[in-house]
């Protein structure tokens, strides 16, 4: 089967083509990228980057998820963009994500696109194997607390 035949077969269950979906994803990523490269957001990230990895989860909770603190720093979150904490099954030390849902009609397979910001970690310290990656994730607030206490996330049940 050629590549185009494979694409036709895979997308035959869907109401859009591969190129349509790619275009919609690019448009929504462009909105996220406009936001995260705006000067107020960059300033916010500079502020966070000057903190230790243990202080950053608190900064996310107190500033990034607080509309008043964002406003005080001149960060205007555009309509449709969400700032959220999350947790991964592979236990990487993630801090927050900037997310945009895909529009109706394009969200039956992928629902959203996002850019996710993590505390630093050694790539080889977070495995990519199925048994590690397909575990139930931690509850995001508890994961943030564990990071603030410097507790290795792998030790969390």
């Amino acid at each position, binding site marked *: 089967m050629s590549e185009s035949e*494979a694409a036709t*077969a*895979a*997308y035959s269950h*869907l109401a859009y083509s*591969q190129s349509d979906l*790619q275009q919609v*994803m*690019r448009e929504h*990523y462009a909105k996220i*990228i406009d936001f*995260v*490269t705006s000067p107020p957001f*960059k300033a916010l*990230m*500079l502020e*966070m*980057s*000057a903190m*230790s*990895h243990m*202080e950053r*989860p*608190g900064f996310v*909770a*107190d500033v990034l998820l607080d509309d008043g603190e964002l406003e005080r720093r001149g960060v205007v979150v555009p309509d449709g963009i969400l700032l*959220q*904490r*999350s*947790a991964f*099954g*592979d236990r990487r030390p993630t*801090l927050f994500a900037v997310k945009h849902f895909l529009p109706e009609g394009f969200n*039956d*397979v*992928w629902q*959203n*696109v*996002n*850019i*996710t*910001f*993590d*505390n*630093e*970690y050694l790539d080889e310290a977070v495995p990519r*194997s*199925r048994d*590690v*990656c*397909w*575990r139930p*994730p931690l*509850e*995001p607030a508890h994961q*943030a*607390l564990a990071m*603030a*206490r*410097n507790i290795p996330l792998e030790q969390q049940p």
Partner: protein
Amino acid sequence: MEQKAYLQNKLEELTREQLIVKSQLDRERLVTITGNLIDTITSPKFIENMRQFRERAAKGASFEEAGDLMSLESLRAAGADIPKDFRLTSRVFEDRETGFKIEIKPPRGIDDDGMGRVAWGACAGGGAATVCGCAGGST
């Protein structure tokens, strides 16, 4: 003199951090990362497995079943072309309205070992429900 050296070190550290933030949030870099991600997660093999996963998830699929369709191992075995540094894992997003509210402060007496003081990672992902395909890159 000691204080001067300390301040000089701090200044250099902050300059390094500023450079890292600037490079992480470089528009062209993010466009490239997300473009590569889109190419990967919209490929026919990837989209077909993800479509099946969503169907099963609607009926209450287990993590085991999710791994059958959406692990790197199973996707590669099905012929999907996935970059070596790609990550694919379960994921939950917090509901800001109903999520737990916990005061998060580093407790006194715990030494910060300095890890993460300089760098943090940015990861671009395309996600749905409990799955997020992510590409590049932590520093």
